[in-house]
């Protein structure tokens, strides 16, 4: 009797509570459930950074002044990579502060993985992830059937396009329509009408194309993604532990990344491979959902350097 109840208790624990609020922040699918998920830490990181921007202005702390475009962390300049490129294209000149800020960000994201910015800093990412949850809900209700997939390489057209326009006209074009900065500045300064534009993108993502802005358009993310192809911290896939359950495919915003990693892992001796590619935003959703720890964060090239 006593043993039976213990067994049913453990069985209940292992049952995945899908779609509950609890599961947003706590892992339930792991071998040892009950851990705080990466998603929880990530959302906290996004909210913390946005709040630091907003509060350091509101309380005049001067700790992290400015916005995501360009900021001063304790009087040390930081410039967003794509904004820096746009500035050089439009202004056709350099300043010392801009170069220092650009290189600092470049160096930082070289170590922590290029599109870590997208997953851990970008406020639009949080909005888009909530959009994904809304999509899941509506799909369960039967309102939405299936969204279209496009070729992710179209992002390079936008990347080149939004650099060519300032190069020709001499005025920065894209920053007026960048949802990342619109949301960021709405928290720091006053909200503007352009938040409706962000809402429009979100509605388009929920109904027609999954993570449309992040996957196909956002040139800021593309720049960090290009850096990510050579950066150190990435997700490492271990084929030995993988049971091919497919949970990670369901949550990944670009599942082809994981297929490529699987192919790469089969070629190597120790059956492990890093998730390469521009699309991976280091969101660690795959690590969260993997019950067998086949995926984890690791540093690349360390064996070569050390």
């Amino acid at each position, binding site marked *: 009797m006593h043993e039976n109840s213990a067994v049913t208790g453990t069985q209940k624990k292992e049952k995945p509570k899908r779609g509950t609020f609890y599961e947003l922040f706590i892992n339930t699918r792991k071998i040892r459930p009950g851990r705080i998920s990466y998603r929880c830490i990530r959302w906290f990181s996004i909210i913390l950074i946005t709040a630091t921007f907003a509060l350091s202005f509101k309380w005049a702390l001067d700790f992290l*002044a400015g916005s995501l475009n*360009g900021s*001063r962390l304790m009087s040390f300049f930081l410039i967003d990579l794509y904004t820096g490129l746009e500035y050089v294209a439009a202004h056709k000149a350099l300043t010392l502060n801009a170069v220092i800020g650009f290189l600092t960000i470049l160096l930082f994201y070289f170590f922590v993985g290029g599109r870590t910015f997208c997953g851990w800093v970008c406020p639009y990412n949080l909005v888009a992830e909530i959009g994904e949850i809304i999509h899941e809900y509506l799909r369960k209700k039967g309102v939405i059937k299936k969204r279209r997939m496009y070729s992710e390489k179209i992002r390079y057209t936008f990347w080149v396009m*939004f650099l060519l326009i300032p190069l020709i006209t*001499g005025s920065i074009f894209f920053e*007026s329509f960048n949802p990342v900065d619109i949301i960021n500045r709405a928290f720091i300064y006053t909200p503007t009408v352009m938040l409706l534009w962000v809402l429009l993108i979100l509605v388009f993502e929920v109904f027609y194309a999954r993570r449309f802005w992040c996957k196909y358009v956002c040139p800021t993310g593309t720049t960090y993604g290009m850096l990510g192809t050579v950066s150190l911290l990435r997700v490492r896939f271990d084929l030995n532990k993988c049971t091919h359950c497919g949970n990670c495919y369901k949550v990944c915003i670009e599942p082809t990344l994981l297929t490529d990693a699987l192919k790469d892992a089969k070629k190597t001796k120790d059956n492990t491979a890093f998730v390469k590619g521009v699309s991976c935003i280091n969101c660690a959703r795959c690590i969260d959902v993997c019950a067998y720890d086949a995926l984890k964060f690791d540093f690349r090239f360390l064996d070569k350097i050390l």
Partner: protein
Amino acid sequence: MERRLFVKYLGITAAGTAVGVGVTPLLTEEQQTLLRPPGAIDEKKFLGACIKCGLCVQICPVDCIKLADIDKGLAYQTPYIDPRTNACDFSCKGIQCVLVCPTYALVHELAPNAESVRMGIAKVIPDRCLAVQGKKLKTKSKHKWDEWKYKWKVNPAEYMKMICNLCADKCPIGPGAITIQDRKDPKTGREYQIPVVLQGCTGCGVCEMVCPVDPPAIIIIPGKKWGEKNA
């Protein structure tokens, strides 16, 4: 297949660039309507140099710099000063917004000190001016005094004048920028006083802020310099 895709994307890039370049003039204003902070470079170049970070907004001790809204097109979220609500008075001495700008949209060479700043030029509208009409300044202006986020401690006695000369009195540059001069109407022979803007005017907008009539009798024309014809 790869090649076809490449050509297709090249076409999309070219088309998008053409649309962007075509749309840009529609989204920028021909005449500068925003009063830029001190040391701002030429308006057309300014849109290429300003990355809309808002550092100048955050550093300003008198909170006079604001960010433009989307009705200004590509100048969305670029800094400007609305002198009527809150004007730049150079009380920060070093001109902090210039020093903090990471991309030199505000250049130190154009604003090494308060006197050499040229943001615009003040223009007097005599029909509205109290001094021209010879009126006393005794009533409060239409500003709510407590809404002023200004650093001066407002002493009401300063604003009780026989003939209004607030703009000249409160000008941070002083007699080099604006003075009250005596004039005589050639037709009627009536003697009156009028504020005259001189070469030293920086266009900071303190005169527009303190002007007690509404709409103000002295306004700032952004981007213009002394001696240039006003459109």
